[in-house]
């Protein structure tokens, strides 16, 4: 490095001092060497780039350079589409057998240019949208370049618009695809089917068993559960940015923005305008636009000019009428504008109707009822209209706004059919993100009171307090509904006492040894738990009476989806510190129960062990604290419900541990617990705990009633 710098410094001085003759000689020599070097360099890199363009850098090619395939006039033509095709008859699911993770794999054929015997192209090679569509598939998790492992095949022959292709020759092109096999497991995308004069509602290209993702199916051509109905993509989606407009009343109640309506329909909508005046707006093509104005982006009413699609945002409802084809691109524009589409196209299969609930986003009116449209719409309550406006916009954002969205939704639908047990739920397809966030789907939603006969399993977490543990076991075994006792031995350095030393009780007693001393072992879904109800109990809780525990179990039966515990605790917002605070004072409210003794459904053990969000589980094990707060958070978060505190009990007093109940320890404890709440609230991204003002007591608790007639006379005090 230093040497070369020196040379560079001295270099300029060197040459002027030489004789002219030598100088020319040296310069020539230098130039030759330099040229040689450059040439070598070129040689070094040039072949490399040629080589790579054959290899992995295929991408930088022109569409015009793709291989040409000549289709002889007599090459085979597939059968016409088979109307009786269903997934179980025409689709070979075994081809999807190699696909892991419940995801189908999709292969895309290489792009070719097809010409007939005379060298005339069969169609335009590929449209912008179809290229986008194939790019989207290729970039997705569905894609595979291994034709032998693919479950679904997508030809690169562009049939989006039937008008641009020659039907017979396109069919021949399909038939010579390497894995065509009567079109089995092949997927074609078409948005504009049919052609004049009678405009078929499905692609006219004979395609045998191939699946068709079509934009404009009618009930006669749509093979329910086989084809996929897709939207007609509106190029305006990409061109125009319509910011979302909040729901609520808009200037026009009903708007018709389509041009080229059939005169009969136009008469009908104009009649609506005459009848209802200002609240209905009927637009048409502009006839007197000056040169250079893009006519697609303008609409006119008499001499008034409106910007399209912006005008759609001024209306609550927008008519989407059948044109020559059932599928109309205007549907996409209307949804984008958050205008509720009023679909008047008998027998039209709405896009993605297999999974999307169009009742929530649109109004479908039979053509016959067109004159009643206004009164039908007026009968819809305002609240429902606002829901529909929101829903319409959400459908556009999720499934209409780009070719990519359309392609991925189509593949997801097919994927859901092949792996129905892993299918996306109705809610996931249809609920807008705001609803998904705010709503709770309780995993134990069935209102069911489990039978008392099943009883509960008590799980005692213990380390080495054997004496206290034995007392707990003896006490708990007196509870009538106890069906099994499980001791979780959390001490790896010491063996549990010998079998003969354990208290003799009337139910099975099992000891589980753990591999590590972790608090979360208490909430592990042990195979030994055979009942739905679990009682978690510490090895020092001896003050709870048998009546109290039995009553706790009976309360759990009435609320099997909740945590049912004894001492209650509360979380509070500390306005000074701007964070959550843990509260164990005797308040009028509770939002948590301690799991030192609590009943809950064993499903929550599974959730705690395998589905706890973030690093909470490790955090609890590391800090050896707050496993109960974590459980309270978890249950409240999945069920959306509050805990049930039973009986007056306010704290667990254990005679042995009064000594350490000192004030300073208490304060650190409170600080730690508050920290847990703040930590968990940030991991959950919300505060799931619910505050209530009630607790559960036996019906006749503290009533003036003979004690001996009460079911649970011995309910302990604080």
């Amino acid at each position: 490095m230093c040497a070369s710098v020196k040379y560079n410094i001295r270099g300029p001085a060197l040459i002027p001092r030489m004789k002219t003759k030598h100088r020319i000689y040296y310069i020539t020599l230098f130039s030759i060497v330099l040229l040689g070097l450059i040439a070598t360099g070129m040689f070094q890199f040039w072949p490399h780039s040629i080589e790579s363009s054959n290899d992995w850098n295929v991408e930088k090619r022109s569409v015009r350079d793709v291989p040409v395939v000549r289709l002889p006039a007599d090459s085979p033509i597939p059968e016409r589409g088979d109307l009786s095709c269903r997934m179980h008859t025409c689709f070979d699911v075994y081809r999807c057998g190699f696909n892991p993770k419940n995801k189908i794999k999709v292969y895309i054929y290489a792009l070719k240019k097809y010409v007939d015997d005379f060298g005339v192209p069969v169609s335009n090679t590929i449209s912008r949208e179809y290229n986008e569509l194939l790019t989207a598939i290729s970039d997705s998790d569905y894609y595979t370049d291994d034709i032998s492992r693919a479950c679904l095949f997508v030809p690169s022959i562009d049939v989006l618009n039937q008008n641009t292709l020659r039907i017979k020759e396109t069919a021949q092109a399909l038939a010579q695809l390497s894995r065509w096999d009567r079109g089995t497991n092949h997927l074609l995308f078409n948005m504009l089917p049919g052609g004049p004069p009678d405009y078929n509602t499905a692609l006219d290209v004979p395609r045998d068993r191939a699946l068709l993702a079509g934009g404009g199916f009618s009930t006669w051509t749509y093979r329910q559960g086989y084809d996929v109905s897709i939207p007609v993509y509106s190029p305006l989606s990409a061109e125009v940015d319509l910011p979302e407009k909040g729901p609520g009343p808009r200037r026009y109640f009903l708007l018709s923005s389509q041009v080229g309506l059939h005169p009969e329909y136009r008469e009908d909508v104009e009649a609506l305008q005459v009848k209802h005046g200002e609240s209905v707006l009927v637009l048409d093509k502009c006839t007197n636009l000056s040169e250079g104005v893009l006519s697609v982006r303008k609409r006119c009413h008499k001499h008034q000019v409106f910007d399209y699609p912006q005008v759609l945002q001024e209306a609550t409802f927008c008519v989407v009428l059948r044109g020559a084809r059932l599928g109309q691109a205007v549907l996409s524009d209307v949804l984008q504008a958050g205008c509720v589409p009023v679909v008047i196209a008998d027998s039209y299969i709405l896009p993605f109707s297999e999974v999307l609930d169009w009742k929530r986003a649109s109004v479908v009116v039979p053509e016959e009822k067109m004159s009643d449209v206004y009164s039908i719409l007026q009968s819809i309550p305002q609240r429902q209209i606002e829901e529909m406006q929101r829903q319409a916009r959400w459908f556009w954002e999720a499934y209409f706004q780009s070719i990519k969205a359309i392609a991925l939704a189509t593949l997801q639908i097919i994927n859901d059919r092949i792996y129905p047990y892993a299918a996306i739920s109705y809610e996931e397809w249809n609920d807008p993100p705001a609803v998904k966030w705010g709503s709770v789907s309780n995993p134990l939603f069935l209102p069911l009171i489990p039978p008392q006969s099943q009883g509960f399993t008590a799980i005692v977490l213990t380390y080495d307090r054997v004496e206290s543990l034995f007392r707990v076991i003896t006490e708990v075994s007196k509870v009538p509904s106890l069906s099994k006792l499980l001791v979780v031995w959390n001490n790896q350095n010491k063996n549990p006492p010998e079998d003969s030393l354990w208290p003799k009780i009337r139910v099975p007693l099992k000891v589980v040894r753990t591999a590590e001393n972790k608090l979360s072992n208490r909430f592990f879904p042990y195979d030994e738990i055979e009942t739905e109800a679990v009682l978690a109990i510490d090895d020092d809780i001896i003050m709870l009476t048998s009546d109290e525990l039995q009553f706790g179990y009976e309360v759990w039966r009435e609320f099997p989806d909740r945590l049912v515990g004894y001492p209650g605790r509360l979380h509070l917002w500390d306005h000074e510190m701007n964070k959550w605070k843990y509260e164990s004072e005797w308040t009028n409210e509770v939002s948590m129960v301690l799991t030192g003794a609590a009943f809950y459904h064993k499903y929550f053990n599974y959730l705690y062990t395998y589905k706890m969000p973030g690093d909470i589980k490790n955090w609890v094990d590391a800090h050896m604290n707050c496993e109960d707060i974590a459980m309270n958070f978890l249950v409240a978060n999945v069920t959306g419900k509050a805990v049930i505190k039973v009986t007056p009990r306010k704290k667990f007093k254990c005679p042995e541990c009064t000594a350490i109940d000192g004030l300073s320890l208490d304060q650190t404890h409170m600080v730690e617990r508050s920290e847990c709440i703040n930590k968990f609230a940030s991991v959950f991204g919300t505060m799931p705990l619910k505050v209530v003002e009630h607790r559960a007591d036996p019906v006749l608790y503290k009533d003036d009633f003979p004690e001996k007639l009460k079911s649970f006379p011995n309910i302990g005090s604080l």
Partner: protein
Amino acid sequence: MQSWRRKSVWLALSASWLLLVLLGGFSLLRLALPPRPRPRAPQGWPRWLDADLLQSFSQPGELPEDAAQPPRAPHGGSCNWGSCFDTSKCRGDGLKVFVYPAAGPISETHRKILASIEDSRFHTFSPAGACLLLLLSLDAQTGECSSMPLQWNRGRNHLVLRLHPASCPRTFQLGQAMVAEASPTVDSFRAGFDVALPFLPEAHPLRGGAPGQLRQHSPQRGVALLALEEERGGWRTAGSNSSACPWDGRCEQDPGPGQTQRWEMLPNATFCLISGHRPQAASRFLQALQVLAALQEMSPAQVLALRQQTQFLWDAYFSSVEKVIHTTLEVIQDRIFGTSAHPSLLWNSPPGALLALSTFSTSPQDFPFYHLQQGSRPEGRFSALIWVGASGQPPLKLIQAVAGSQHCAQILVLWSNERPLPSRWTETAVPLTVIDGCRKVSDRFFPYSTIRTDAILSLDARSSLSTSEVDFAFVVWQSFPERMVGFLTSSHFWDEAHGGWGYTAERTNEFSMVLTMAAFYHRYYHTLFTHSLPKALRTLADEAPTCVDVLMNFLVAAVTKLPPIKVPYGKQRQEAAPLVPGGPDTGPKLQAPDPNCINQIAAAFGHMPLRSSRLRLDPVLFKDPVSVQRKKYRSLEKP
């Protein structure tokens, strides 16, 4: 100097040459050797250089300017809702159904179907006023084949209920009639027009029906994962330990250690494999193993959800003939209603569309059942509805106590009494409206449009409550908006001696009903009471006023499948509990209704929906030995 210079130049030159030779050599070497196979990155779809120049699939202007098409006539071969059903006949009353009388002797199922329609709110006796004409077709047993009915009109607005598939030769074309049948084939089924039914066995109960067999939410351990239907009526179970098959169909043909159980014995398994056609046993076993492999991939959460959903669907739509038929009619009514049909949530989550009337609302938040799924909360205010029965005394003290609650939005006085309306009422902080009722007990549960809140506090003029009691009870109701929250309770029991249900208002350790003379509940139950209960039951309540409590409690329990909730009630008044509304003024004794009443209602429901509870919800510090100053609801404890 010169030589030094020359030397250095030569040095530089030779170095350059060396470099050149080396580099060139390498390149030649690379050409000579085949390229090493590099780790293959997936070859995606190419990024074309000229992608931006590609034409759009539709030229601007092409989309909107397609040649327009005239309206099309209904397609000949098939029907859809828009083209083959005339909804204009259904205006006004909604769906009214006329059933063609049976021509000859009819089967048991047939009779049950007729009964379930005739008892429903859909039924009409006039074919002219009906919007749907129902034809029960072609009973195989009787051998009678229906002839063309009178009002046929090419089958328009007709529903043909086929109990036994193709048991009769078709004597006439179905035309535009809808068909409701079990297991329709995908080729003949017209989606959105025909209705698919479950198969109805002869023994299927008319109403009520057995509740689901599920006694606990999650699958038990040690229970077989899959049971498969066998020929000759049996089940074979396959455990989760059976060898799973790969998806390519290569399975060992080992029937495994499963055991065959009798058909009648319901299989104790998590999943049951039911196949449409009956393939050979061997291939079925292969199929089952593949299914098993798939099922094992399902998460416990999914299995839990599916199990519960089967129970909900069974109980809401399948368990009796009445439910199946009413579901069919409800489906058709939803088609008629269009935008005011049940949203999907109402169909698919408890209590189901038969119990969540879309005539009440189409917004789930308006019902008491869906707050969790909607992420909404019950309103923070209630309306007090005070019924003034025979006594005719304006309940001024009660009005003051209730109006004192911070949650009270309005007070409605339902004057159901022969005396004239008093002209003056007390001044209250909240609006007070007097409704002049029509002297019937069932009036108390009429959905008055003047009720503007979701929560109703139903009161009798002679009830006595303190503001504290009202406040606490309302806060509890907000946690359980679908249940009734009451102060006074009673319970039902099975009376062996009389072989029927009994009823007691005595204080016991458990209860299953709360008295509606002082109870919070959702206003939706007024709509349900008035519009979904059979008229006979409402008449029963009017004739035996003590029955109305039982009826309301039955209704709510049938919807929620849960017991009501009891909250504390002042002690001294509990002994001197006020009268049951409507009863004669015979003294301060709680009067138990006629046991006939509970048995009649139970018969009409077809089952006993009441559930018992053993708990009472008290304030957190209720009767605790702590300072009264700490307690929010301290007046609840006053002796």
